[in-house]
């Protein structure tokens, strides 16, 4: 794990230790504690981290949304940076959702992909946030870029509730709108979600550290150019 600021335990940041322990606990819950699903078999164990990644993707995009609103409202750079860093992590976890889902679907239903409302809206969400990152990377650093990115992120967030409620609004496709699930499976899912949320916090912290260093470097470069 790259360096992260914070309290340290023998040279390793405390949050890193907590995340590693939480991930080990989640793996134990998923592979040993949770029972084998009767119909789908072992492959159903993809479910736990698939759902945890989906939860995290949406949480990360919610942070992008809030950060963008706060940036437009207060005008403080830190809110833009939190939004950008969270967007990047959200794309990573949504990529996990969009790759593990088809692997699971192929094994259970025999198809990689169907254009059902949940899958389609999730793919649209992923494309919109990849576009957000591309947009940020391609425009030169200026106040206008940050404002435009914030407005784009607020509009892009409209798709997130559509992804979440798609299985209730359009009751068709691979994802069930309601299901009964073994309590042990629910426990494993909760632990996986907690572990991934802690991992998100750690990644966000490290990513913000990287961004801070990048901003400092740009500042020094500008100072040198002004001197010349």
């Amino acid at each position, binding site marked *: *794990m*790259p360096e992260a600021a914070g309290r340290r335990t023998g040279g390793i940041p405390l949050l890193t230790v907590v995340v590693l322990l939480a991930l080990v606990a989640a793996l134990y819950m998923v592979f040993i504690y949770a029972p084998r699903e009767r119909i789908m078999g072992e492959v159903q164990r*993809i479910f736990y981290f698939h759902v945890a990644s989906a939860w995290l993707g949406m949480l990360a995009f919610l942070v992008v949304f809030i950060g963008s609103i706060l940036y437009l409202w207060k005008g403080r750079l830190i809110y833009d940076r939190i939004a950008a860093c969270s967007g990047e992590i959200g794309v990573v976890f949504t990529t996990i959702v969009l*790759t593990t889902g088809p692997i699971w679907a192929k094994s259970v239903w025999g198809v990689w992909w169907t254009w059902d409302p949940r899958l389609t809206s999730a793919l649209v969400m992923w494309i919109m946030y990849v576009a957000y990152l591309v947009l940020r990377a391609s425009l030169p650093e200026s106040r206008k870029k940050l404002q435009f990115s914030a407005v784009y992120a607020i509009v892009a967030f409209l798709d997130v509730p559509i992804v979440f409620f798609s299985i209730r609004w359009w009751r068709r496709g691979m994802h069930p709108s309601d299901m009964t699930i073994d309590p042990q499976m629910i426990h494993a899912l909760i632990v996986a979600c907690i572990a991934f949320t802690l991992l998100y916090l750690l990644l966000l912290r490290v990513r913000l550290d990287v961004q801070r*260093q990048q901003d400092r470097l740009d500042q020094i470069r500008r100072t040198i150019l002004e001197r010349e």
Partner: protein
Amino acid sequence: MNWYLFAGYSVIMGLILGYIGFLDGKIRKLRHEMEILQNELDGTTPAPESTS
């Protein structure tokens, strides 16, 4: 061994570790660039990587 399960978890591990590697690479690159700029500001040339 269920190969779909193996593939699924390989993707999860690969993407998370890949992103951590990306961040690590970025930190190293920034640190190196910062060193070069610091030397420029101090008016010194960066030390050679190897003396042999």
